[in-house]
């Protein structure tokens, strides 16, 4: 099967020896939404920048829609659309002018271009604002215009770099709807996000990346089912040492993957409901007060913890960049 995006062993080091990509490999099936999930600084944006020809990797290969990004960057640029993390909208031009110029750059002219621009303005609910300067747009409108700019020339592959960062919940929900529609049009979408929920909801497949490498890849369901059992999240009354809590709980056969950060205690059990009473009894007996308990089916957050060896939040706080 021919992949829409095929990446092998990408390495990219920035001056100052920050290794942004460290042997990243992934493959995206055509016509699907693929989620690149990871905390800030994991290498998501760098991956996109290599694939959209903005940056060059030190080594490795990347092929987009059958074209090698290093050997034929010009050809790649014709086939892709990009929605950058930071808006690329020209604030000193109207919505329509922004779209028209983008189309002109891609060789579109006259009636064809006008029709396409009208169509996109309509589709993204920008028709009534088309004649206004883009600098007067709200954040959500600007983001929509960014997506429209990426689509003017009907690209085969669309890169969406953190499309919903900074959007209010309503605009985010609208953006999710738009992204789902794109895949239905047959466009391959590579989406980066640091929202676990977003990757879970939108992507056919997800790659979890950490420190410039893919640490897990599969459908959200596959990744979650790799994890046996339920996640147990306990909030302790007081912060505790990881080792001491571990000593107490390791004696219990039904409990595994114990981790403590401050007052938060995470563990895993085949049957959460039956394990909880035993866990609580052991903790109380050892003098650890419990404030709250939650038993949950595995989430991508748990998958991340399992593969990256730290929670998503920890990685966000400690992440490079």
């Amino acid at each position, binding site marked *: 099967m021919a992949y829409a995006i095929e990446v092998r062993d990408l390495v990219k080091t920035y001056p100052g020896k920050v290794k942004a990509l460290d042997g990243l490999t992934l493959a995206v099936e055509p016509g699907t939404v693929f989620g690149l999930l990871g905390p800030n600084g994991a290498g998501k944006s760098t991956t996109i920048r290599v694939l959209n020809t903005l940056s060059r990797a030190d080594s490795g290969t990347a092929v987009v829609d059958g074209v090698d990004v290093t050997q034929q960057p010009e050809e790649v640029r014709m086939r892709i659309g990009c929605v950058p993390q930071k808006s690329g909208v*020209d604030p000193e031009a109207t919505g329509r*002018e922004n779209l028209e110029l983008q189309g002109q750059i891609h060789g579109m002219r006259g009636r064809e271009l006008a029709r396409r621009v009208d169509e996109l303005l309509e589709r993204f609910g920008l028709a009534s604002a088309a004649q206004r300067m883009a600098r007067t747009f709200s954040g959500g409108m600007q983001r929509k215009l960014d997506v429209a700019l990426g689509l003017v020339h009907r690209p085969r592959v669309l890169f969406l770099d953190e499309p919903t960062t900074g959007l209010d919940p309503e605009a985010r929900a609208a953006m999710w709807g738009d992204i789902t529609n794109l895949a239905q049009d047959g466009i391959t979408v590579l989406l980066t996000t640091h929202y676990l929920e977003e990757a879970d909801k939108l992507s056919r497949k997800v790659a979890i990346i950490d420190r410039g490498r893919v640490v897990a890849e599969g459908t959200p369901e596959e990744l979650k089912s790799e994890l046996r059992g339920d996640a147990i999240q306990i909030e302790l009354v007081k912060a505790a040492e990881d080792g001491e809590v571990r000593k107490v709980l390791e004696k219990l056969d039904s409990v595994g993957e114990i981790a403590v950060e401050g007052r938060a205690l995470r563990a895993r059990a085949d049957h959460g409901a039956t394990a909880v009473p035993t866990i609580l009894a052991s903790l109380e007996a050892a003098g650890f007060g419990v404030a709250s308990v939650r038993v949950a089916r595995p989430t991508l957050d748990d998958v991340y913890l399992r593969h990256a060896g730290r929670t998503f939040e920890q990685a966000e706080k400690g992440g490079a960049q």
Partner: protein
Amino acid sequence: MRVLTHLTFLTERHLRALLRQPMYIAFTVVQPVIWLVLYGQLFQKVVELPGFHAESYISFLTPGVIITTALFSGGWNGMGTIVEIDRGVMDRFLVSPVSRVALMGSRLVSLAAISVVQSLLLIGLGLLLGARFGGGVLGILMLLASGVLLAAPFGALSNALGLVVRKQESVIGAANFLLLPMTFLSPVYMAKNLMPGWIRTATMFNPVTWSVEAAREALQPQADWSAVAIRVGCLVVFAAGAAALATRAFRAYQRSL
């Protein structure tokens, strides 16, 4: 062909954005007008100095202020590039199949267009204030060309600096530091043979001198076109050097991404 069509679209974009900023236009017009009126009055009498050789100071000054204005428009041009980088517009263009030559070239073409409009306004004002140009239409055209030939290389250098440092403060610093002294180290305000020796020597290596002398010579009733050609030649070489440097700066910017 693709370069030309892209150049047209991108230049159109720059000029359209400019026309939408009436305050900015007002300032770019008012500033040189102030120079022309103020310096014209202030130094009126210097033409009476023996050896100045000019019909009137306003006739001498008008091409000088036009060239100075072109120099400043060019020198500040890199600010726009930094704004485009900061806004993410630059990167958006770089991931599109836009012609790279047109992308940077469109800044210089708009700069040239603005420079010509400013020059024409100043020529009109100079005439109102009593300036007389004996060189006819050809002389006026050469004056416009001299301005463009100075604005373009300084625009290229300013953009090169903007691409490398990416901080507005640095471009502001460099422009403030260089531009005004360059006009004083040239015969913009003062006849060359009345300058102290070391300044006169310095003027020879100053592109502002080449530009203003080419313009003034062409505005003479019996212009010495070989003298004009030498100075234009110097400007063209300078422009080629600036273009080469700007191209390298652009590559460095792309590598840094």
